[in-house]
């Protein structure tokens, strides 16, 4: 369970808090999507979840962030890291080795995973991400999408109880993005892992997340089931979050009194809803 209570944070070099008054409870095993306009404080929120704030970025920290009973302010970053696995936004600077296999090995070696488990975990993480054939490749020779998969694999290998990913599909094409979300959802189901994903692609988030969080100017504007959040498509647009066109269309039909069902998340659901409307 992750419990964020009245959390505010102001970076040392900024005048205003980047996030303020954040209250959020994430149950174990939940798949949470966080989105918002650029500069809304999404990444800062992930830094709070993986302990990077307050341990690496100095500033004024108010409230509390408790993960599996660990208050991130009371323990060292390494303690948080044993619970939370993180994939940063800029994967290029996340790599500490130059070969794919070594990158996946790195965390396993550090956390003292038994030797007889290591090979299995490396192979499984690479296979899960569909990059087994890249095992011996030099990381700098990979495409952006492949690098992102390597970064995710290196964290999945650690079997963290909580996964925090900051725009994990930023450099992936739509099919690969879908595949990554499929994998994350399956992984979370199989391992009971809590997944928190910051992502711009709201259509993907709403398809996979149990809880969709919209951040606006450092505050949580909505935190609910995706279908309920998507009902506010006009307001979301005003704060810089573009809903899928199918969602906007059905919301307009609802506003005109032509549709009374729940908000749709994709074209398939819109088609089904329209069939009902036209029937």
């Amino acid at each position: 369970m992750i419990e964020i209570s009245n959390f505010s944070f102001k970076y040392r070099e900024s005048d205003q808090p980047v996030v303020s008054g954040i209250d959020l409870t994430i149950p174990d095993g939940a798949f949470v999507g966080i989105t918002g306009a650029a500069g809304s404080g999404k990444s800062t929120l992930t830094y709070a979840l993986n302990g990077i704030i307050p341990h690496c970025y100095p500033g004024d920290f108010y409230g509390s962030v408790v993960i599996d009973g660990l208050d991130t302010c009371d323990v060292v970053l390494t303690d948080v890291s044993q619970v939370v696995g993180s994939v940063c936004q800029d994967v290029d600077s996340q790599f500490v080795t130059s070969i794919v296999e070594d990158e996946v090995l790195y965390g396993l070696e550090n956390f003292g995973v038994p030797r007889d488990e290591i090979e299995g975990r490396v192979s499984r993480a690479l296979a899960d991400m569909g990059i087994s054939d890249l095992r011996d490749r030099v990381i700098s020779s990979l495409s952006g999408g492949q690098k992102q998969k390597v970064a995710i694999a290196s964290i999945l290998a650690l079997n963290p109880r909580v996964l925090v990913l900051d725009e994990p599909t930023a450099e992936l094409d739509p099919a690969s993005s879908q595949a990554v979300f499929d994998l994350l959802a399956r992984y979370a189901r199989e391992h009971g892992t809590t997944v928190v994903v910051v992502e711009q692609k709201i259509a993907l988030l709403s398809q996979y997340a149990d809880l969709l969080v919209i951040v606006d100017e450092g505050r949580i504007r909505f935190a609910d089931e995706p279908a309920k959040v998507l009902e506010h498509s006009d307001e979301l647009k005003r704060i810089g979050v573009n809903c899928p066109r199918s969602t906007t269309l059905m919301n307009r039909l609802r506003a005109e009194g032509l549709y009374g069902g729940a908000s749709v998340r994709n074209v398939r659901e819109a088609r089904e809803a329209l069939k009902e409307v036209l029937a």
Partner: protein
Amino acid sequence: MSSFLEYVPGTSLLHRMNPVAKLAAAALFAVACFCSSNLVFLAVLLAVGFALAATCGMMRPAIGLAKAVFAFSLILAVVQILTTSSGAVLVELPWGYIGTGSLLAALTTVVRLVAAAIPLFLVFYVTKMNDITNAVVKVLHVPYKYAFTFTSTIHFIPLFMNDMKGIMEAQTARGVEFDAGGIVRKVRLMVPLCVPLLVSSVRKTNSAAIAAEVRGFNLRGVASGYKEYPFAGYDVAVMAVAIALVACAVTLGIVL
């Protein structure tokens, strides 16, 4: 094509050697270069360096490196020519003269620096950075923090070079002509680019440090490395040859 000092996969003997043996042999090779002033001996060492590069398919990077070291050592050579007056007089100077001995000393310096550099740089092309770190921690018991710092520095060189290339390409797209004019103009154009490069470099190293920390960097100990690095017969043989080269260099230095 790999970047500067970036590992190139392969199966040659140099690739398969123990990382510590490679480092030790390359260091001994460099010591041999600096222990002798015999031009013929140094020329032989230079040839051996290129032969080693050829055995692991690294001839092109070795030639590139040799050119870079040559350019750098030319500066030293010029200073040496102007300040060391020995041998038959070729050119009179107000403070002495340039002689055949001056030219020979300068040539020796150039050959020595190029010969010493090739095997040292070759080590990084044929060894995974992680293997170097783990091997020096496991075999030499160097504290992991120091080993990681050293290899991270090497790891970041190609990344920063790529960043610089990217910044230069962006500037070229905006009309800056890096390819026109001489070296002085090019350097003058590049100086302002050092600021964005420095900013991005600091950001990258900070992010890498955080990434290492969230993956248990502080928990790492001597026994953490998964791979083992045993010494094979050829590792011992190569080190013995390197020691023999040092002995030869010292002997030649005393006798000649």
